[in-house]
């Protein structure tokens, strides 16, 4: 069973592992191309003053995601340090 925790929920400074991406079509493709693939580790590193978007560290690069997109990415924080 997947946790219902999404990337948008994890606090700045914490890390998680991607379990699934719940969107389809070009949006899903785009996220996968940016390196957001299941099994990958993501670090939430910075949030913009308005709270949206948030910058994430993924596979060696900083990627900024809107909360709408980040909430499509389900994650697991257990065992990720």
């Amino acid at each position, binding site marked *: 069973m997947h946790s219902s925790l999404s990337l948008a929920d994890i606090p700045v400074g914490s890390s998680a592992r991607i379990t699934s991406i719940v969107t389809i079509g070009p949006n899903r493709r785009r996220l996968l191309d940016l390196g957001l693939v299941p099994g990958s580790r993501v670090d939430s590193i910075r949030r913009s003053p308005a709270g949206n978007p948030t910058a994430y560290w993924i596979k060696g*690069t900083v990627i900024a995601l809107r909360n709408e997109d980040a909430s499509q990415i389900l994650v697991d924080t257990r065992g990720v340090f």
Partner: protein
Amino acid sequence: MTVNCHIVSTEPGKDNPTVRNHFIIALAGNPNVGKSTVFNRLTGMKQHTGNWPGKTVIKAEGTFYHRNRRYTLVDLPGTYSLHAGSADEQVARDFICFSRPDITLVVSDATCLERNLNLVLQVLEITSQVVLCVNLMDEAKRKRIQVDTEKLAQELGIPVVGTAARSGQGLNRLKNVLGDMVDGKIVTSPRCVVYDQELESLVQQIEPRLAIYMPNWVNRRWVALRLLEGEFNLLNHIPHNALMDYPRGEIKEDGALCLL
């Protein structure tokens, strides 16, 4: 070194291959991997380099000579994929797919290879004439990252050359590999991504039916996969001149499934 600019021939394969000595090389890669530095090193040009998104907005061209061959190098915008999600990606994709470069040289960042290999595999789905340049090897060494370029070449089925373009390291080898490739001394056998059975069987149904709609040098497997993804817009980018009886409107309105 001679600096020059040329109009890229859209039909490089038209000439007799035995007498050709002018080759087109497409330079692709993720943003911020030192692609423009490789371009400048190879051509002796001083194209502006810097690291902000979308820097190389249009494709830049330069020429270099090596072992009595002339090469036109086309610097494409840096992209993470070839799915035409942005203007940059579309420029890069259209050039690799439809301008028939003799070789596509993919530049990647040795410090985050995993991220970069996504684009490499996408390029390999379009063309087998690919050379991988693993750049920033100096940076990787500083970060204690070792890249086994030989193993990588084996896994991908294409030549892999490690470089540190800022200092010029590895660039002579890169030119030799490009030369060996156009001379036919290197033959690639690229790793092909195989999808699940359902998808593959759809591809098998669509692929042969595409033959009448496009010239035979267009990679029909790749086009079939894009149509299955719903990228119908792609059909409008296939060059007109080679398509005498191309029923554009028909495909556009009916979509990919009418081909089944």
